[in-house]
């Protein structure tokens, strides 16, 4: 029956309208056949059917869309049977005119009385919000995928896929992005030729991350290439690069190690200057490691920039350039540090590829496989004729 105020009048019951006039759709279903035995006015209104069409014949499933019916049969009723209650389930009521009313459904039953009590709340606004939320979530996922693809594409343009093959010189370079590679870092390296027997090897780190850092990294890279043609001395090149970066107007600055290699009498003359960057590591064939380079100021950071070129005649040593992603890698024992790096280098076999690979592998292992910052490493050595 449909409970009305009149039908429910009872002196012992101070709230005779509790069911009939409840501000939510309320229905009672008989067990075990699941047909409606009581509905209130709001339920009638929500489902858009008169009480005469509902009682004793309609089931909950028959009032829902097909998707809701399947969800009810395969999930909700088994859960109700098991847990005795379900709450906040989003469903659509299907009215006889074909329109859909989004509702939230709560229902309960008890072990001694299998009668099912169901309440429905109209949820048009919430549904709109959910819809927007799902659309926003999908859009955000797509945007994140696009941004990651963009970052990785951009990063590839800053890092040569493999250093060029240079007669009489072995060069091994490696780059590992921070985290999952979804953010562009500022690390870069470049290896390029300026004369028949003259090459530059540059490795640097632009401060900050993201697209603006990547734009500055790109600027630093092509400016270095352009300057290298007219300024054969590394410290002189850094002076010009410093001025160019100041003139650029960016807040990003750059640390770098820049090296020229000139072929001389069956070996290479190396000239090297540092700009706020860790010194290069020189390893001899006996495994002894020492630093190469005189500290300088970062490029584009201070007014009185200062750079010094050092010269070294490369014989059977290897020279390793690296960014601070190596020494500032964080593990259980704190930062990886220069001491660990030097002793690792001492234990390496005396070949550029072995050294570069060993350093990147060890530093990644130290951080359990996830780099907290970009890692760039370049090692080179004269190749015996």
């Amino acid at each position, binding site marked *: 029956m449909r409970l009305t105020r009149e039908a429910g009048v009872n002196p012992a019951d101070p709230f005779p309208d509790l069911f009939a006039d409840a501000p939510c759709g309320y229905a009672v279903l008989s067990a*075990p056949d699941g047909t409606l035995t009581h509905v209130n006015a709001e339920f009638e209104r929500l489902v858009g059917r008169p009480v005469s069409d509902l009682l004793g014949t309609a089931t909950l499933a028959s009032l829902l869309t097909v998707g809701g019916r399947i969800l009810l049969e395969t999930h909700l009723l088994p859960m109700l049977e098991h847990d005795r209650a379900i709450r906040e389930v989003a469903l659509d009521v299907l009215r006889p005119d074909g329109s859909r009313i989004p509702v939230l459904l709560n229902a309960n039953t008890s072990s001694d009385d299998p009668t099912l009590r169901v309440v429905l709340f109209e949820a048009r606004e919430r*549904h709109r919000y959910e819809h927007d939320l799902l659309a926003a979530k999908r859009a955000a996922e797509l945007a994140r995928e696009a941004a990651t693809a963009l970052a990785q594409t951009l990063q590839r343009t800053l890092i040569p896929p493999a250093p060029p093959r240079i007669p009489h010189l072995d060069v091994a370079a490696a780059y590992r992005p921070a985290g999952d590679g979804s953010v562009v870092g500022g690390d870069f390296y470049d290896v390029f030729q300026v004369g028949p027997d003259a090459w530059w090897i540059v490795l640097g780190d632009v401060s900050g991350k993201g697209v603006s850092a990547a734009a500055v990294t790109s600027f630093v890279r092509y400016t270095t290439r352009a300057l290298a043609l007219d300024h054969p001395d590394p410290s002189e090149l850094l002076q010009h690069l410093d001025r160019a970066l100041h003139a650029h107007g960016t807040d990003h600055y750059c640390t770098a190690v820049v090296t020229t290699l000139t072929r001389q009498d069956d070996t290479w003359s190396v000239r090297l200057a540092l700009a706020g960057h860790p010194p290069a590591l020189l390893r001899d064939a006996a495994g002894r490691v020492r630093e190469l380079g005189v500290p300088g100021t970062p490029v584009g950071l201070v007014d009185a920039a200062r750079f010094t070129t050092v010269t070294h005649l490369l014989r059977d040593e290897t020279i390793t350039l690296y960014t601070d992603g190596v020494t500032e890698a964080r593990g259980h024992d704190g930062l990886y540090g220069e001491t660990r790096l030097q002793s690792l280098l001492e234990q390496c076999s005396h070949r550029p590829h072995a050294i570069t690979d060993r350093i990147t592998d060890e530093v990644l292992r130290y951080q359990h496989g996830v780099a907290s910052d970009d890692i760039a490493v370049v090692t080179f050595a004269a190749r015996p004729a």
Partner: protein
Amino acid sequence: MGHVELLNATVDGPPEAPAIVFVHGFGCGQHMWRHVAPAFESDHRVVLLDLPGSGDAHPSTYDSARHARLEGYRDDLVALLHELDLGPVALVGHSVSAMIAVLVQIAHPELVDRLVLVTPSARYLDDPPYVGGFTASDIDDLLELMSRNHLGWQDPLATLVAGDPTSAAHDELEQAFCRTRPEIAAEFAAVTFRGDNRADLPKVSAPTVVLQAADDSVAPPSAATFVRDAIPGAGLEVIDTRGHCPQLTAPAETIAAIRRSLGAPHP
């Protein structure tokens, strides 16, 4: 880890007794059989399991690519039966697992000597003159509805019954019943409702009984009779209950019907 552990499988009942394996359908897990399976433990070895991605099956068992076809589930079930080595079993499959059971029997007739298909459908989508009961847009509607409910699907429903969200009981419930990772549930729904196994049915070579609910809004009578007619010699029994899960709504009748079907003569 073996398949017994991976699929959270259990075997109860007297050694040497004939074996009966209950496989749950889309939604929930082996608990769907809790009112029915114990009734067979006196004279059968009763096997219960959770399908990959459902119930308490190990998360590593589910593979989106492999389980995009029912054959993926079939292969898991075959591996489990090989590992259990119970001899030929009676295989009871509910809903989509009725078709998984059919595929197991066809691929390995030596493992299955009897099929009981509870509320089966070989194809849920209409394909005139075949009546499956659903259109493609109905299934889209289901997937959309599931994604809406996944906004808060995992947690609030469990909190309701278990109280304190940090309690052990809560963890147990959240894992236990009808809760599947949203992306897996959506994929399982898609493979269930978009599949078509009608061509497989004539290849079944074991005695088969179809148990149909009198008023089932998921698998209509036309689906059950199609399965009965397509499987050589299959029988059909109607259980007088409403809904898609007679093992929950009419456990005693379901037990009796399964018992009768176990004794059914070979066609």
